[in-house]
């Protein structure tokens, strides 16, 4: 689609998610429950699409975030790097309800970066000599063996930004950045949920974390739960 870079701001999560369809591959930003596009995640369950392939570092946790997709039974497959204590995923993986592909975290990020950058495949040392190597081509380069990893594009990316202008230039907050920018580059349709929506020009060109060229729909969601997983503190 050419010329989609006008009028990106939509009025509601429902409007933002209108193009979703059954069977799509959806990339969802976040690291555990941090940096999650919370309203879009809720909206997908309400939207009623099914048989999704979810690409996410963790697929939720503590029954929250993307774990709600698992509980709603709308996911056929998860591509993630870490499961940990995500019981909703453990249960469905054990029962066979959800297929799970576990990928090294850096490889997962790089596969999406490659998809966004027009690189169909790349070699990496990560996973050589491990189960990750199974079924993959290898190549010796300068005396060291590497795995060939393929780009991982998505149909849709759901992204959380702290600030967004009307063209879709994004800024992220602290480690809420994580997979969000790289996923935004890797999908045919990138939908952004932003804490604050500002006019074009409000973000200095040098201060843009991700250029609006990668963004297609924007929904402004001022309030977020920002759930904690481990609220560790020190004494004053």
């Amino acid at each position, binding site marked *: 689609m*050419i*010329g*989609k*870079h*006008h*009028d990106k701001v939509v009025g509601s999560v429902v409007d933002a998610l209108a193009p979703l369809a059954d069977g799509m591959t959806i990339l969802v930003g976040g690291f555990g429950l941090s940096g999650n596009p919370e309203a879009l995640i809720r909206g997908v369950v309400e939207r009623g699409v099914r048989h999704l392939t979810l690409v996410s570092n963790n697929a939720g946790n503590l029954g929250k975030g993307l774990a709600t997709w698992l509980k709603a039974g709308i996911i056929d497959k998860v591509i993630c790097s870490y499961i940990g204590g995500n019981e909703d995923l453990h249960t469905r993986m054990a029962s066979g309800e959800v297929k799970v592909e576990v990928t090294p975290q850096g490889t997962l990020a790089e596969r999406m*970066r490659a*998809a*966004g*950058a*027009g*690189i169909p495949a790349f070699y990496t040392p990560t996973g050589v000599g491990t189960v990750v190597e199974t079924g993959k081509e290898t190549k010796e380069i300068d005396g060291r063996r590497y795995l060939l990893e393929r780009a991982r594009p998505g149909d849709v990316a759901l992204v959380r930004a702290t600030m967004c*202008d*009307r*063209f879709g*230039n994004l800024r992220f907050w602290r480690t809420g950045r994580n997979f969000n920018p790289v996923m935004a*580059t890797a999908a045919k349709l990138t939908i952004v949920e932003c804490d604050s929506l500002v*006019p*074009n*020009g409000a*973000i200095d*060109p*040098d201060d*843009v974390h991700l*250029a*609006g*060229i*990668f963004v297609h729909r924007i929904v402004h969601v001022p309030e977020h739960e920002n759930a904690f997983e481990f609220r560790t503190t020190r004494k004053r």
Partner: protein
Amino acid sequence: MFTTEMMARRAAQEIPEGAIVNLGIGLPTQVADHLPRGHAWLHSENGLLGMGPFPFEGEEDANLINAGKQTVTVLPGGSTFDSASSFAMIRGGHVDLAILGAMQVSATGDLANWAVPGGKVMGIGGAMDLATGCRRVIAMMQHVTKKNEPKLVARCDYPLTATAVVGLVITELGVFEPNGTGFRVVELAPGVTREQAAALSGAPLL
């Protein structure tokens, strides 16, 4: 015949509202003059999206330039980024349209625009990435060389930039679309006949 200004205006009509466009060095750069304000977003491969017009005198910044190394400005909503990110945009198919100068275009859409056989090597620059990565490529050029050799050809004999990429060619004689066996005549410039254009082309006009 089209003047170069008419060619630039005609090329501008090919740019949909809200498109991301990369304009090559030379004639394509002039296309920007014919775009309504805010109509499209200009990308410059040295690391700028939302490129604005030349600066007012006295406001030139040597570190705010386009890929032709001319001083430019940045519009509200613009952004800057490094070369790897810029070419990720291009190679990844995020730039909707490239309008590029050309030396030869073939009936199958092959583009030659970076080197003349036996001539000085000027280098590739961003040409191959742009021609390969942008979703649509429009070539702008004079219809024939200075020696009157056709530049719309059955098969390029200049070094290629990319194969099967050109969607449309704009010359002073008209607008042509490579269709595999020749060029479909989309439009002829005022006062130009199909026979005249055909006589100056190295592949059938269809």
